[in-house]
């Protein structure tokens, strides 16, 4: 499987996700600079975490306007899978590949912590290695992960099964206790309609080795590899 990781000025978790992909695929992903409107064909596009353009104005807003994102939109329309993590989720949402926005965390503070997630479906190329309803532990690290969409959009997302992950308590209860940022309906990650684009705030790439935060994130990358090869 060939993966490309986009790099914007201010991206900073591109190394983490590269490390995860390499561990799972045995192959180094290609790094693509934001100014490259045309990059080689890949099976997967990853928009990594970080503070593209310092998170200034609105998170992801400036990166969403870059030449590389215009190309990503074209390829996503052709069905090339796109994975946006954290700032990558914000960028993908600003670029219109996913509905809704990520607002400031409810308490206005940056939060870095392990959280529990409930996997909503195993029916996607990103989640096929998980069971629906499974609870996994991965970290978050963000100041603006408070997902918001208007009632109509939200209903559509829920009805069509486009919610990928929800924050929950360690025993799987989806309530206020496990929600680190105030996200509506505890949403931690969503798909597009065809489930070929996934945006999520938590960092599965930081949960792939037992000594470094556990291995619950590894199945996400393994699932992608399996689905794409």
């Amino acid at each position, binding site marked *: 499987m060939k993966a490309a990781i986009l790099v914007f000025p*201010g991206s*900073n978790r591109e190394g983490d996700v590269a490390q995860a992909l390499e561990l799972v695929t045995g192959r180094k992903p290609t790094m693509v600079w934001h100014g490259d409107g045309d990059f080689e064909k890949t099976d997967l596009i990853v928009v990594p975490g970080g503070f593209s353009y*310092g998170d200034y104005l609105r998170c992801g807003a400036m990166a969403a306007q870059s030449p590389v994102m215009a190309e990503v939109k074209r390829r996503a329309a052709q069905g090339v899978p796109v994975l946006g993590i954290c700032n990558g989720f914000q960028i993908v949402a600003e670029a219109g590949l996913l509905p809704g926005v990520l607002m400031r965390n409810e308490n206005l503070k*940056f*939060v870095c912590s392990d959280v529990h997630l409930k996997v909503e479906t195993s029916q996607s190329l990103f989640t096929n290695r998980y069971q629906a309803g499974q609870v996994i532990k991965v970290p978050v690290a963000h100041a603006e992960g408070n997902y918001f969409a208007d009632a109509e959009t939200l209903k559509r997302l829920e009805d069509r099964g486009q919610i990928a992950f929800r924050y929950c308590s360690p025993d799987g209860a989806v309530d206020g206790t496990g929600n680190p940022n105030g996200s509506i309906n505890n949403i931690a990650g969503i798909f597009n309609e065809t489930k070929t684009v996934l945006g999520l705030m938590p960092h599965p790439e*930081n949960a792939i080795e037992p000594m470094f*935060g556990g291995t619950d994130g590894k199945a996400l990358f393994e699932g992608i590899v399996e689905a794409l090869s």
Partner: protein
Amino acid sequence: MTIAAEKNPPVKLPNEPQITPQIVAEHGLAPDEYERLLKIMGRTPTMVELGIFSAMWSEHCSYKSSKVWLKKLPTKAPWVIQGPGENAGVIDIGDGQAAIFKMESHNHPSYIEPYQGAATGVGGILRDVFTMGARPIANLNALRFGDPSHPKTRHLVSGVVAGIGGYGNCMGIPTVGGETNFHAAYNGNILVNAMTVGIAPTDRIFYAAAAGVGNPLVYVGSKTGRDGIHGATMSSTEFSEDSESKRPTVQVGDPFVEKLLLEACLELMATDAIVAIQDMGAAGLTSSSFEMAAKGGLGVIVELDKVPMRETGMNPYELMLSESQERMLIVLKPGREELARKIFEKWELDFAVIGRLTDTERMVLTWHGDVVGNIPIPPLVTEAPMYERPWTLTPLPPVLDARQVPAPKDWNASLLALMSCPDLASKAWIWHQYDHLIMGNTAIRPQDGDAALVRVAGGQKGLAMTSDCTPRYVQAHPETGGRQAVAEAWRNITATGATPLAVTDNMNFGNPQKPEIMGQFAGAIMGMTEACSTLDFPVVSGNVSLYNETEGRPILPTPTIGAVGVIKDINKAVGSRLTQDGLGIVLVGETKGWLGQSLYLREACSREEGAPPPVDLAIERRNGDFVRAQIDAGRVSACHDLSDGGLLVGLAEMCIAGGTGVDVTLALGDVPSHAFLYGEDQARYLIASGRPQEVLSAAESAGIPAVLLGYSGGPSLIVKGLVSLPIADIRAAHEAWLPTYMNAVE
């Protein structure tokens, strides 16, 4: 610019004021220091020249009060590649890799504007480390705030923490450790000490010494504005046409630009273009250009009108003294300008050739073709004021007999109170605002061990790092306190299984012109020197912050020690979390029950008195080497050193970190139980082991006091006959204080 023009006396700029005694005084130069300046210059200086002398001879840049003492610190060891004198210290950690680290203070700016002050402090220390070619892999921060009940404290905590997080998180460097204390002595003068650790190949380390006459001097990074220009000097209003726009301003950090600067510098460093590189920190362009030229024994011409400027109407004085952030000065090899320019333009940063090196040993400044400053470099360095200020040592206070300290009436309540006191309460509210996981290499997170442990990417090696100081001990007896700070840092590294390698320090003290303050400084240095020598723990970098006083009231003397150690196989490292039942809990080291200056005495009895616990360095070394060997032998599941709060607090911390209880029985001897449980005797560790008998017999053959206290398991912390508390209750008390405090309104 011709060499002939260099000989011309500088021209005065329109509107440039006459140098009066008042202007000299406003620049912080004493009359005899100004005499010295006149002798070096042989004439009255121009304003920009005066500003340069003032900056270079300031306490901050010249270390004039502290230098004689700093020289005493041990700085050498076979693994030291670069000791004090460069932007950061460098040690060899094997496999062709070096660890590069330093700590620096941003105390005053953080008190004025906590968010930006702390943020730019982090930015500054990061630059010190990456200017030497290292990619930063971890940040730490040591914070001291005033009394929680002081009206400013909450606002300062909130701003400083947000600022440190705001900068470090955006840079993508994990902030993995630090310390936070509260004491009324810091009410008007908080301490914000930031430390960065980076990694570089040993054969690609960059230094500041300029070389190569004619080589271009290049400015990169952000544009220069009027940030942080020395307040006093700005009162010469006639110097400005538009005084409102020229008012000195707080430095604002731009971590986004710093991230670009980091990547651009590392990209340029991978080529062969760089001769020397130096960040612009305190006193900006002045100290960076001066230091590069002085270290290389060369001269420099700077064409100030070529400096990228953020504001209109800036003058040479402002350009030389601005402390705008996120800037670097580089000497390039001839002909490499275009290569370098391309890299910095790719990263959307300013790039300008602003001068070149000469063989004149003079700093010549030009402004649109005119020479406006012309200073001989060597005398400004060699004849810089250096003071042997009078000092009187703090006498050792009388030893406090534990029997004069009351035992707690209610043991459970006393433990809960201590675990929730500001100094011991969990700082999770703080470190959850710091990204401590980015880079995917954090093996021991905050609160999970005595030192943070970070894997060096691409291998199995780990770096342990910590920052320590117990200011109340230093206040009581600076020599003991200095010794203890170093010993505790060494112990914290040891408790993870890593080998302590070297130290960076941040000497925060009051007004050095007071003999008792200078005596605190001297005493602390003496203690540190002894400890660093005995423990083979050299000082490789550091920073001094003096005049930390408000209205004549000094802070507690705070020589913060940052330390780094290495472990070859990170899989062998241990944290302090107790996660399994049935482990033997072994206390290593002797417990005499030392209550003088203990937290128990302060928190439970409201007394701050007595001699601090003595530090026997030979015993420290013996016990620590023993513990490390036990960890290496695989006999240890968890390890915790004993410090603030003593044995009972140490046990409680292990329990709540891992969610497992303990059941222990004390072998008191003739020590009163409250002294045994709360005494702060040094050189002690708690080890949790599945094979405690092996640990005990190894200790016996090494002649080291060690005793099996009991076993882990169950939901509670139980000390037979004294304490019985559910772990959940201790944790609740421990974790509640800071968030509750921060969410309250005065």
